[in-house]
């Protein structure tokens, strides 16, 4: 049985009895998982490769739906509503729950157009409003100074770390409530990584954050809560500072002390 601490504060998401099965797989990749996600906090998901942490993360914005045959069961409550139903409007769900990927995903267009992309999708055409919000998003993502003189340049000319911050700017420009980070620094150098981590911590003022990471130091540095997953199950969810010092589950302890993984 999983050890899950009681989260006192408000919750952004609530996973209940959740199961996920990939198309064509016999057994579910995530089994009977319960997990609260605190609002305006950072929750890190850790665990060995194949434990289901990315699978879980990708369920929160139902990006799995892009590939036919994947199956959800149970509930994920977002604003008191189960988002796993078939009548869920995925477009508005994904506007509220944004995602940052492992590799930077700058679109093949200018820096400006990249950041404006999500807003334009929502029908914002007003030039001044777009300009203001693009600037604000880039400032919030701590990349404004580097790109303000080349907003019309191709975004693919930026460095990896800059592109990742651009992707964060693009995601926060539509003012989501939740941001999902899928190993956002695994393709970056240490300096860029530090920059992204700093940014993630600043962002929690405004959004709830879930971050999947292979890097336990990263989880310890940035997160408020940490969930340890193993073989499709949540083994332990706790306050980060407690979990890394005094894990309650033996498996957690073995993993964070490097006995396996």
């Amino acid at each position, binding site marked *: 049985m999983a050890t899950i601490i009681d989260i006192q504060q408000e919750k952004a998401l609530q996973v209940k009895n959740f199961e996920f099965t990939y198309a064509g797989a016999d057994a579910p990749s995530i089994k009977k998982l319960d997990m609260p996600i605190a609002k305006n906090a950072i929750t890190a998901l850790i665990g060995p490769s194949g434990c289901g942490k990315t699978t879980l993360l990708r369920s929160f914005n139902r990006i799995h739906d*892009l590939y036919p045959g994947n199956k959800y069961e149970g509930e994920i409550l977002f604003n008191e509503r189960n988002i796993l139903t078939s009548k869920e409007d995925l*477009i508005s769900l*994904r*506007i509220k729950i944004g995602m940052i*990927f492992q*590799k930077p995903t700058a*679109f*093949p267009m200018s820096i400006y157009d990249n950041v404006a992309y999500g807003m334009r*999708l929502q029908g914002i055409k007003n030039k001044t409003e777009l300009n203001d919000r693009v600037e604000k998003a880039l400032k919030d993502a701590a990349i404004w100074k580097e790109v303000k003189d080349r907003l019309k340049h191709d975004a693919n000319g930026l460095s990896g770390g800059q592109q990742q911050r651009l992707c964060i700017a693009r*995601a926060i420009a539509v003012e989501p409530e939740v941001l999902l980070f899928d190993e956002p620094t695994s393709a970056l150098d240490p300096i860029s990584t530090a920059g992204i981590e700093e940014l993630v911590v600043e962002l929690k003022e405004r959004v709830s954050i879930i971050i999947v990471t292979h890097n336990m130091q990263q989880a310890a540095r940035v997160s408020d809560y940490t969930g340890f997953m193993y073989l499709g199950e949540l083994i332990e969810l706790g306050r980060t500072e407690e979990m890394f010092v005094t894990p309650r589950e033996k498996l957690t302890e073995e993993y964070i002390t490097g006995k396996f993984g």
Partner: protein
Amino acid sequence: MTHTQKRIIINNVIMTLSTLSAVIGMAFLFWILGVLVINGIDALNWNIFSQVGAPPGYEESGLKHALIGQLYIVGVATFAGVPLGIMAGTYLSEYGQKSKLAEIIRDISDIMMSAPSIVIGAFVYAIVVMPMGHFSAWAGSIALSIIMLPIILRTTDDMLQLVPSTLREAAFALGAPKYKVIIQVVYRGAKVGILTGVLLGVARVAGETAPLLFTSFNDNFLNTNMNEPMASLTVTMFNYATSPYEDWQKLGWAAAFILSMFILGLNIIARVFLMKKRIK
């Protein structure tokens, strides 16, 4: 002889043989180009572009009818084949993906690509020319667009699949509907590749003779009515080159030269695009 010496000799022999083979292959290419250029440039004059065909012996005889006919037939074929090919390729890469139907279409398209073009000409003869009762430029364009279709379809499919799926996911994750993801992100990422495919497809059909022989047939005069038989560079070249008249044979050389330069040009442009893409 030591082991090392033996190895060096074998190495040199193999290197010489393979270099020689490469040179022989290239020699034929330059031979063809050389003969074409020498005879073609010799046959070129202003009349070729300003005059239509005339009986042998006439001074004022040219290829204007065939050049314009070629533009019409290939133009209409491109107009029909390119959107169809791009849309079909989009279906395969973005909607069908690895489904059975998509795989079957891919296989059929590969088979179509290697189908002899004369067979496609015969097919169009049977379904268009016979019911209409006469040859027409439409039939020629249809035959060419059928030949073009699998080339554009497969390059589009391949080029779209090269766009990383995370890029699509990122657009979806911002709340984009599928058609906008395809048009605004996926096409943009693959545009150079798709354009290259289109150019290669056009270059391929521009040199076709067999499917035009019994579809658009030929006309010795200028005609812009797609319902009528129409001259094309390739069929005109075939007729003139096989004729016993020296001035017609000269025109045939000119047609061959112009056509080759056009196709060579398209191929070079396509290659430049691809190179630029690789550098990026």
